[in-house]
């Protein structure tokens, strides 16, 4: 069923009894051409682009829980492309372009709102560093602007301009913004299903089937499923699954990142605002339901627990009070944690592996949501053609050995520095 204004009106008049389910709940087939492990945004997007761009329609997405129940449902929904390093630059720029047409592409409103991403500046050194970054973006055809204090005050009137850290201005990417995270998952799931992809929820991979050095299938709690090619998109739990596949150690540590949502408010903030001074790190936006959605840094110690600890919580609230003191009397509605693949240079990999038939999409740190469309596009390309797309040509797994790390922050090979 195609969604459009007419179908909304017709179904509304008929009491909404004619809507059909958005995707099937099929039984697993014994074999597929491609299995994608992980029914988050990246896995679903990969399946969609395999079918759409490469005509590979005999595809299954295997998800151990429910769609988007991992990090796809646990992020702060920010979409931006303010990256500087070659590798990230072309990849995130490509992703933002895909976002701009995603609702039409999927016939599903992903509520992508280009409300601007405002990176606050507090010192001349920070201004210089960001000027270099945003100029690099301009050279590459992306957008970036300097906003002075007056312009900033007009757009975000609640900002504490002269607090502990006086604000000098901001570097801004106007095309950046937010999207509705669930809608992204559901939109890709529905569009992939319509092209013939089987989405298998509550199906957990327990092992891999090997034949002559290749991986030729997976063992699951619903039986063995064969496939010629298998792609892993399970960020947060990549090391655990990779160990089952025999991939060995990876340049990843799992860390927990917390996020928070306030009670719904009337319109308060119509942009994404980011604060970073010293060890303080904070980003905030307002969802369409009115809740303030915000987060900060990692908890900093390795963790597979989908829950955070108190020190980071108080730190983030302190940041909120520092730049938006008006938030001080707002009640917090929800708080949660997601498990991140923190890679050794802060950048992801979309690559083939040393095991024939096995492909890896991992290492998203805490920037995976904005990458969803391009990650799917590039992973599908890599799986279907056995070579990378131009946007993920530098996002290799071998770059660490070659000394070609894509280290956006200059943090070095320490996962929690990124």
């Amino acid at each position, binding site marked *: 069923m195609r969604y459009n204004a007419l179908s909304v009106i017709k179904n509304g008049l008929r009491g909404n009894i004619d809507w059909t389910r958005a995707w099937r709940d099929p039984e697993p087939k014994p074999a597929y051409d491609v299995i994608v492990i992980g029914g988050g945004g990246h896995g679903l997007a990969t399946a969609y682009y395999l079918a759409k761009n490469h005509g590979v329609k005999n595809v299954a997405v295997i998800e151990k829980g429910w769609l988007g129940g991992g990090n796809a449902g646990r992020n702060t929904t920010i979409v931006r492309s303010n990256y500087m390093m070659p590798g990230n630059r072309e990849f995130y720029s490509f992703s933002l372009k895909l976002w701009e047409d995603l609702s039409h592409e999927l016939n599903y409103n992903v509520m992508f709102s280009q409300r601007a991403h405002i990176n606050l500046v507090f010192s001349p050194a920070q201004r210089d560093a960001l000027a270099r970054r945003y100029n690099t973006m301009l050279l590459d055809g992306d957008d970036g602007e300097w906003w002075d204090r007056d312009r900033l005050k007009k757009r975000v009137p609640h900002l504490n301009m002269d607090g502990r850290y006086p604000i000098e201005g901001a570097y801004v990417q106007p095309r950046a913004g937010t999207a509705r995270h669930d809608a992204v998952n559901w939109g890709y799931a529905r569009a992939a299903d319509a092209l013939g992809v089987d989405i298998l929820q509550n199906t957990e991979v327990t092992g891999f089937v090997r034949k002559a050095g290749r991986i030729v299938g997976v063992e699951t709690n619903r039986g063995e499923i064969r496939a010629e090619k298998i792609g892993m998109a399970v960020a947060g739990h990549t*090391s655990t699954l990779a160990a089952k596949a025999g991939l060995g150690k*990876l340049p990843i540590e*799992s860390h927990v990142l917390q996020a928070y949502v306030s009670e719904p408010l009337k319109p308060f903030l119509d942009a994404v605002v980011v604060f970073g001074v010293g060890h303080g790190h904070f980003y905030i936006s307002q969802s369409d339901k009115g809740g303030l959605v915000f987060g900060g840094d990692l908890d900093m*110690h390795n963790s*597979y627990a989908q829950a955070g600890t108190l020190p980071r919580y108080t730190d983030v609230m302190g940041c909120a009070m520092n730049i938006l003191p008006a938030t001080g009397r707002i009640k917090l509605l929800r708080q949660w944690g997601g498990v991140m693949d923190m890679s*050794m240079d802060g950048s992801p990999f979309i690559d083939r592996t040393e095991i024939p038939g096995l492909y890896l999409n991992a290492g998203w740190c805490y920037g995976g949501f904005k990458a969803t469309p391009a990650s799917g596009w590039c992973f599908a390309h890599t799986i279907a053609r056995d070579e990378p797309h131009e946007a993920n040509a530098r996002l290799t797994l071998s770059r660490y*050995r070659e000394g070609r790390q894509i280290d956006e922050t200059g943090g070095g090979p320490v996962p929690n520095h990124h």
Partner: protein
Amino acid sequence: MLRIPCPFCGLRDHAEFDYEGDATVTYPPLDAPEDAWFEAVFLRENPRGRHREYWRHTQGCGAYLIVERDVTTHEIFGAELAHPGMASAMEGAA
């Protein structure tokens, strides 16, 4: 809040400590082959379970500790001084 049993200071909130990474990594000699260095610098076991890791009691005694912790349940099994000389000195004192 995790609570870490510092050998000098006793049971303290983890907010007093800085996490300093995986303690199972051993760095090879300087003239070791590149592969050994690549593995030590970049590759991690990243287990979902018990993990030996460095913590520094930055806002306490300042000592580097090796803590064994379950990274899923946050259960802490024990903490010892990371420096072998200090560890044996502590044993002598006890």
